[in-house]
């Protein structure tokens, strides 16, 4: 990994801003659910912030991403508009999906966020199709498929990575390995230590990196994205990480080994990156505090607007089922 391209100071600060938005948004959503203000299933991304932040600084608005129910961090990193997101979380008509999708189906094609799926692994076959479209368009656009370690054992993974390799598609498969598939540990789900070793079986490069390390994540993503843009085909990146809040809000996490949890806490990427920015004189404590406060202000506004907005009219049950209303 030492030969990976590294993010410059400005990029590192950009990664921190995106990751901080993800973290603060996540903490706020959980607070609002626990306060009874939001009623939604929610799959926290606390702990996985660096992965999409370091990927998306390498992406353009028109690059495609597909993600899964634990994917709000992927969406925020790519620039999902906050007001539309919060209205969607609250099921309001002003939500990006008119309140009809919810957090498991966040979509914003204007910035390439094409699909959020509630089905484990189903982001991958569709990301391939977007990659095919991008290849036919010939504009150097790429498609990123996000999924978890659990999804690496579903049929769609194997069919998708194989097809992407055969068709030499500009797709980056990002396995965010947070060590748990629902409540089952990674080691109870697979006999390989690194999922990236599977890439060789499909004829594509595969790497396992520390997804919590912005340098490694940025470098691996940059190489894979440049490779895809150059028409050289797909890459599998296994980004090692940890989820601090279990499978979904309300999960007590009794199945999580206490030693693994406390080790992960010591490696929480957010305070580590914050300290590094100060230590390397990229930003001062005061500057970082100002960034964090500005994000809170933005989130306040998005949350308030969402709560004040109207619910969709029941007529919406008939709309968007087909292009034209039927029956």
């Amino acid at each position, binding site marked *: 990994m030492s030969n990976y391209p590294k993010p410059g100071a400005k990029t590192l600060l950009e990664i921190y801003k995106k990751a901080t938005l993800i973290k603060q948004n996540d903490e706020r959503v959980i607070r609002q659910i626990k306060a009874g203000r939001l009623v939604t299933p929610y799959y926290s991304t606390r702990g996985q912030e660096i992965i999409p932040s370091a990927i998306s600084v390498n992406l353009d608005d028109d690059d495609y991403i597909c993600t899964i129910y634990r994917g709000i961090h992927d969406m925020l990193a790519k620039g999902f508009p906050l007001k539309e997101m919060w209205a969607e979380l609250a099921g309001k008509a002003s939500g990006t999906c008119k*309140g009809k999708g919810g957090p498991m189906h966040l979509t914003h094609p204007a910035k390439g966020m094409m699909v959020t*799926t509630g089905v484990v692994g*189903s982001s991958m076959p569709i990301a391939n199709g977007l990659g095919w479209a991008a290849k036919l368009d010939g504009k150097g656009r790429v498609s990123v498929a996000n999924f978890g370690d659990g999804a690496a054992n579903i049929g769609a993974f194997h069919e998708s990575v194989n097809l992407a390799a055969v068709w030499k598609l500009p797709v980056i498969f990002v396995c965010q390995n947070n060590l748990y598939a629902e409540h089952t540990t990674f080691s109870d789900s697979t006999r390989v230590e690194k999922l990236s070793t599977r890439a060789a079986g499909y004829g594509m490069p595969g790497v396992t990196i520390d997804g919590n390390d912005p340098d490694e994540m940025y470098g691996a993503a940059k190489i894979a994205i440049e490779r895809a843009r150059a028409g050289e085909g797909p890459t599998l990146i296994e980004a090692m990480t940890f989820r601090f809040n279990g499978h979904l809000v309300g999960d007590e996490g009794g199945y999580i080994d206490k030693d693994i949890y406390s080790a992960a806490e010591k490696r929480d990427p957010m305070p580590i990156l914050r300290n590094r920015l100060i230590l390397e004189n990229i930003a001062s404590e005061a500057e970082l505090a100002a960034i964090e406060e500005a994000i809170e202000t933005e989130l306040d506004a998005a949350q308030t607007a969402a709560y004040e907005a109207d619910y969709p009219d029941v007529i919406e049950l008939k709309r968007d*089922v087909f292009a034209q209303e039927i029956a």
Partner: protein
Amino acid sequence: MNEVMKLTTIAAINLALSDAMEADPKVLILGEDVGDKQGGGVMGATKGLSTRFGSDRVATTPISEQAIVGAAIGAAIGGYRPVAEIMLMNFVTIAMDMITNHAAKLRFMSGGQTNVPLVIRTMTGVGFSTGGQHSDYLEAWFAHTPGIKVVAPSNPNDTYGLLRSAIEDDDPVLFIENFPSYWTPGPVTKELVPIGKANVAHEGRDVTIISYSRMLLECLEAARTLAGEGISVEVIDLRTISPWDRETVLKSAKKTGRAMIVHEAVMQFGIGAEIAAVINESLWGQLKAPAMRLGGAFSPVPFSKPLENAFAPTAAVIADAIKIFVKEPSFHGA
């Protein structure tokens, strides 16, 4: 007015695909064996197309049904109009998640921000001793899913016209072909046939038969037989199963006072149940008898020839059922 040609259904499919690709550079084809290197499709439906339009637009895939439909969905939301070939209808079940959770729902779940203008072509049908996993009609599963249209033509002309319409449609369409009747020739005008519009294939006064796909041919034969016995049968070719043409069906059922739905799929919980329910609900008090159904046996499709022959309704079985139906106002089912 276009020139009328005489084509088989398989030739009509090939022509429709070719004309659609010529008319719109966004039309793509993908599936197993679809390229000319692989023979242009297992039945030859895509023969010549990869040579003419290139293997980027006519793309052969591994045997990976989920990946095929997923790639079609992605290309569709990325601005293309892919036609995915899933060799057999039973194999469509391997891609159920992609079809019912994604293709059918993305428009709604995204609040109309994305749409999935793809066509899934697939073939099925009893008659060639293909047994329990190569012959099923599963259209009810998809007609039960909001967001996907289901089309099943019975002749070469409708096959051409409906396939062109399906490709131009902004919603996902499941296009069901009957492979035992692929090589039956018929006139083709190259005119588009609208999705959602049934066709009165044979006019009559005494009873309305509603059918689609190959069963329509059996119904027409039954109608011709019964005409010689003084029973006037109106045969409606539904053509589109979802959304179905209520107006044409209800108008005919009201006229004759008797309606029977015939399909090759098993009768229980099938398309016939839905249509019969709507006819009975809409025309209560105006019918001479409740609407009834004929369908395949409630069993897997068998291999042995006598069993296969007995599985689905035939012209003779349909004619016998109609004779009883028109005589017995209180007749309540097969």
